């Protein structure tokens, strides 16, 4: 199936992750122009190195959920964005009953409140164009967290709700949203953990394997395409059946 797109400009938040870079490559092949955000110099270099063969077909921009003002620098007056893919997520692995309220509050401020600021900013641009498609990359951990993932899950669920309502409110104006909950992927911050327990994890997944970044990126690209415009304000689980049963 050849995917068709209604827009061209895509913003990938958290663009230095492997999934973001893989997705950007697919976007370029599909004729889109991705802007990948990074939050530090290491992230920028990672993008530039990986994207070297397609130099000129994308751009980068600084953005950090911990720095709410950075959203303002993402957009110059008149900039257009028709697609947003949001991989950005801070990490806080902590037992719920652990001490330390400051970092927990800060975590929610960054990963929920500041994200909301970005979403509102982007949504207004999209509203002006009467078109926009946003994909929030959540996680099956949002609904099936492991020990220590309570804050991560809570932030993901809160962000899912924001995205969902955005699609509900602006769907009639051409701005729609999809929330994707991937399961175990052999990439990202859980890579070491997953690789160390790959056999046990695969036993739990009905399709008996991990997801690979390419198939997740292809799924996201599909959700941005015209073919998927009927999906709005909803969560899609991509986990090989992991969370379907006990």
């Amino acid at each position, binding site marked *: 199936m050849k995917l068709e797109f209604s827009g061209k400009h895509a913003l990938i938040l958290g663009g230095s992750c492997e999934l973001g870079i893989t997705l950007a490559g697919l976007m370029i092949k599909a004729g889109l122009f991705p802007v990948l955000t990074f939050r530090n110099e290491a992230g920028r270099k990672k993008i530039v190195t990986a994207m070297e063969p397609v130099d000129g077909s994308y751009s980068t921009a600084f953005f950090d959920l911990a720095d709410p003002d950075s959203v303002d620098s993402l957009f110059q*007056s008149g900039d257009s964005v028709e697609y947003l893919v949001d991989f950005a997520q801070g990490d806080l692995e902590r037992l719920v009953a652990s001490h330390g309220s400051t970092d927990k509050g800060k975590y929610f401020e960054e990963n929920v409140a500041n994200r909301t600021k970005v979403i*509102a900013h982007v949504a*207004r641009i999209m*509203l*002006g164009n009467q078109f926009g498609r946003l994909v929030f990359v959540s996680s099956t951990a949002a609904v099936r967290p492991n020990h220590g993932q309570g804050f991560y899950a809570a932030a993901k669920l809160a962000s899912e709700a924001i995205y969902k309502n955005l699609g509900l*409110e*602006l769907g*009639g*104006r051409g701005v729609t949203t999809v929330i994707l909950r991937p399961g175990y992927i052999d990439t990202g911050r859980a890579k070491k953990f997953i690789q160390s327990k790959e056999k046990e994890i695969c036993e739990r997944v009905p399709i008996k394997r991990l997801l690979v970044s390419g198939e997740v990126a292809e799924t996201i690209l599909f959700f941005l395409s015209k073919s998927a415009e009927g999906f709005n304000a909803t969560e899609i689980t991509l986990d090989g059946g992991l969370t379907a049963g006990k």
Partner: protein
Amino acid sequence: MVDTFTNIQEILSEILDIEPDEVSEDTYVIRDLGAESIDLLELAVALNTAFKSGLKSEIIDDEIFLRFLREYMTEADQAGKEHAGYLKEKYPFFSETRIDEMLSDLSSGPVLKVSDLIDYIHSRSIAV
């Protein structure tokens, strides 16, 4: 060059799917035209684009749509200040006469008029 009223008239008729002649300077945006919150959001974005204000549409939202009007009146009460004077501080782009009108008209519903949008645009020196 299209004047500010005509520009706003066109924007409102497009957003609300009404005929332009249904919109005059004296028309109430919410009370007469039935604009809902989603329409006001779209209106803020459209005004920002049409008048190239350089203002964030969030600011237009907060300032022009009188979102905090009743909160400001409560603040004035708590500070022992007159409503009219306090609202003039908060909404410097409206004349004292217009603020008096708004206060006397509040019981009939939302007071925002098309002429208020024009005054705001002019006051902010962002008219075309």
